[in-house]
């Protein structure tokens, strides 16, 4: 178990504040020491991982949860940019989106996503997905 002094940093890239709140609310109940940061679009997320602008003091994320349909810079563009950065090439990226289009799924994996999940319409199912991310990616899986 991670000690609070060494928390796991999760970056959520999500333009819908409601979804960000639901994510935060669900992870609040976690036994893990988590630090959740939210970027509101691809540009903001790039600033975060590159520790620029308002994110100059941001910690490098251990896991990125990425929505696809974003203003300014789409999720796929951000993912492509991310995989070009040496320091972040290996950071696990979980896509969490409302799109179930085959082409979005295929492109996400081709661009180096580690996992593709769709947002369930139902709250309980959404909470279950968030807990599954937590228990698999943040507890079971060894992160780089």
């Amino acid at each position: 178990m991670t000690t609070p002094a060494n928390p796991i940093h999760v970056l959520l890239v999500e333009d819908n504040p409601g979804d960000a709140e639901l994510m935060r609310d669900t992870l609040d109940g976690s036994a893990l020491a988590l630090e959740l940061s939210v970027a509101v679009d691809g540009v903001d997320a790039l600033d975060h991982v590159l520790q620029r602008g308002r994110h100059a003091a941001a910690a490098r994320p251990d896991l990125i949860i990425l929505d696809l349909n974003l203003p300014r810079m789409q999720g796929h563009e951000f993912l492509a940019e991310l995989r070009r950065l040496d320091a972040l090439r290996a950071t696990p990226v979980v896509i969490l989106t409302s799109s179930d289009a085959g082409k979005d799924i295929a492109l996400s994996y081709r661009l180096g996503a580690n996992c593709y999940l769709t947002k369930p319409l139902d709250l309980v199912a959404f909470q279950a997905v968030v807990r599954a991310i937590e228990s698999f990616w943040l507890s079971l899986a060894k992160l780089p």
Partner: protein
Amino acid sequence: MTDPSDEWHLRAERRFGMIVEAAPNAMLMIDRRRIITLINRKGEDLFGYPRDEIIGQPIELLLPEQLREPHAAHVAGYFAAPRDRPMGAGSELVGRRKDGSEVALEIGLSSVELPEGSFTLASVIDITERKRIEDEIRRSNSELEQFAYIASHDLQEPLRMVASFTELLGQRYRGKLDERADKYIFYAVDGARRMQQLVSDLLTYSRVGSQGGPLVAVSADAVLGRVLTSLAGPIRDTEAAFGIGPLPTVLADESQLGQLFQNLIANALKFRGEAPPRVRIDARVTGDRWLFSVADNGIGIEMQYAERIFQMFQRLHERGKFAGSGIGLAVVKRIVERHRGRIWLESTPGVGTTFYFTLLPAIEKVAA
């Protein structure tokens, strides 16, 4: 002194001429060499040629350049095996007027045997206006479908927020406010959930028309196999047994054909009687289509409702007795129609229901 039979022929010919002249459609007659031997007044009006400029000319005069050669071969084939072809038998052609403009035509043919030889009498209708209206309807239907798709798709996001946060409110504060607050939360959550179901059904329905793939050769057998695999859970739970006849290759959008089978089978499992479901799926040739049947031994329905159950959000049972919002069969009907088929049912309450639907064969003609 004229031969009385000549006299009779002359009179018959004059009468024939008068009838053709008075016909409400454009009419023209051609001989085996495709030479126009007769045209009526409506024909002159339609093509813009006076009679004397057109009699004795080949029929190709009335066709656009690119259709002339194939048409000549077509006519030769027709005279080799002439058969009457009624109007509305799907024969649409483009004609060319004297001024060079083109006109959409529908043509009916009948063969005429005269002492001088074999002729073909063509009845011709200008369908430009009808085609324009059909195009208009098709465009407006497709726009409506796009609208329904986009509206239902975009409504999902904000609706998900309403549903999620009312539900979260319930999770956190149920029993912590007062009884009345709990009731309000319950109705808000319930209403939001039902609206989510409706919007999601609407999306499924509008997807059939607006997001469908092309119709290609698809093995109905393989598609049904995949559907049965995906329904393995409910099939096991209901102890359903299936009898499946040989199924053909049809012209279909594969995923929609799967959805069609899936919805009909799910329907058979859902509306089962006391006994475990027995479902029989067959196909046979009728005319130029395949006729599929999906027969069950379920609760059946009164035939007076046979049309209603294909309408969107129509349910015959009170809410709670059977799950679902009543979209399944509407989607089924929409899919069959998109495949240029027909669907209907026969049912006896307490005995079972058979759904019938037609699909086009993957090759144009079905071998009888």
